[in-house]
């Protein structure tokens, strides 16, 4: 960890900085910033919330409690797809739009990792 005092246009700014793996962690002006240092050398695929959702991925590492759908089910936006549990809380994952279940990729009681694909959905198919 490095603790620096910068002088920007006469204003003193104290910065804490640390490189952890491929990330640079910074703290200044009461905020923490995380920067990817591997950027440029390799493109990172970012599944931002703005992109079209095509499948259901685990929002956190945890355990599948109950799967509510099966292959070929036609779903309406907001339909419950599965319930999972992590760190003592239950989370419900719902259909982001009208769609058909292409494939269920997990089982009840499975331990799943962050971002692991759980259910493949088809938004093009007519239901």
């Amino acid at each position: 960890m490095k603790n620096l005092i910068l002088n920007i246009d006469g204003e003193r700014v104290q910065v804490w900085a640390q490189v952890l793996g491929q990330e640079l962690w910074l703290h200044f002006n009461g905020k923490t910033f995380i920067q990817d240092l591997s950027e440029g050398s390799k493109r990172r695929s970012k599944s931002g919330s703005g992109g079209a959702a095509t499948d259901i991925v685990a929002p956190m590492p945890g355990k599948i409690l109950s799967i509510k759908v099966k292959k070929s089910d036609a779903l309406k936006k907001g339909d419950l797809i599965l319930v999972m549990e992590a760190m003592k809380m239950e989370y419900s994952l719902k259909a982001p739009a009208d769609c058909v279940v292409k494939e269920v990729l997990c089982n009840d009681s499975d331990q799943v990792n962050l971002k692991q694909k759980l259910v493949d959905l088809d938004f093009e198919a007519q239901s």
Partner: protein
Amino acid sequence: MNNIEKIAIANRGEVAVRIIRACQELGIATVLLHSEADENTIAYRLSDEVICIGGAPIANSYMNIEKVIDGAKAAGADAIHPGFGFLSENAEFAQACVDNKIIFIGPTPEAISLFGDKISAKNLVKTTECPVIPGYNGEDQSEETLLKEMDKIGYPVMVKAAGGGGGRGLKVAHNASESKMAIESARREGINAFGSDRLFLEKYLGNSKHIEVQVFGDCTGKVFHLFERECSVQRRHQKVIEESLGNISAGLRDKIHKSAVSVAEKAKYLGAGTVEFLVEDDNYYFLEMNTRLQVEHPVTEMVMGIDLVKSQIMAANDQSVFWNQNDLTPHGHAIECRLYAEDPYLGGVPSVGKIGFCQWPYGPGRRFEVGFEEGDTITTNYDSMIAKIIVHDESRPRAIKKMIQTLKETIVFGLKTNIPYLLEVLQHEEFVSGEMTTQFLEKNFPKALEKEEESEKEKLIISALKKQMSVNTIQEGELKNPWYEETK
């Protein structure tokens, strides 16, 4: 009188540290009963002795009565402090302590089962002056009856697992169409978490404050109240920010304190307990009684100038506490923020990993309850609360300002925390006004925080540091930043 010389701590994280320090100050030896996953924690390093009682899953360690008792016996402990969560409100465990001639630091097994079963708790409260919420707690648990009772109570209705707590096994049906799903989900959580599918129903008070009174039963049978806390800032029924005193009128305050004491007296309660209420306008209703130390006990300690953990140990030792109810006067205002390892920009998704660096900005009236330090790893084995930050100042507005400043100076590298979220909440006008209810977060912060675009100045600093700190290019004492002035 008992003579406790060694206490086994059946817990982890920041509360284990809190208890070990209290014991050390009292000259009592400690043994930490920990899981395999908790060797890299402050409590593990701080305790006089440690015993690994099992694997990371709580059923193999922290929730395993036999292993905890065996560990305490192997270490020759006179008493067990259960902390909160885990076995702290488990009557069977408290009884196992009694059977093995180990002092359980808490109330009697009878008091735990009385209040642990929300139905018997409500029945006891009904014999006092304390008001209760309309609901159904009958033996008939068929779906048909539950649905009928839900219609009778009137929506919204809360469906709770009878053994639940801490937001688990608790669902709200806002209308008849949601009722079946709420029953199914609460039952599932109840079975998974407490091995019981028994449910009870309650009118859901949609616009109420969560006010709780700290009570304490002394070894002479006297029950004290230590004023109240407000925990209206909750998300998914988990508390996020707590304060003492609560934002209620003086008249209501007196009535609630009297009701809380009457409930504890009726149960001949020993040790620290909390009577929770929902307050809507000038009405208040008994919610439940927690028969343990609370996560948020520090705000009471700061305002009242007392030590609840030491008092618990004194009560267990058959010693009277130092207090006199008339001398127990609150001073100023205290606020606690729970620091969760989670990403506030992804709606609170847990963040796990190794802490690369952390800084707790100590100062007057700033208290940090921490269980981990630099180099420790946060895993998904346990809940995501990694620390509690408590501030105390002369007034509520000052305490809020102090908390904001403290959070801005708090640094955790390696894990994302909810600090940005807490800062937004603390500055929200409804929170500042003190008028918030338990709906506050759901209403005002329904979605993940939106990441703000970095300012030009921030971009400048970031890009400069990125160049300097890039992997392979970082060299001690070789910073060539044009704005560079000094290094520490």
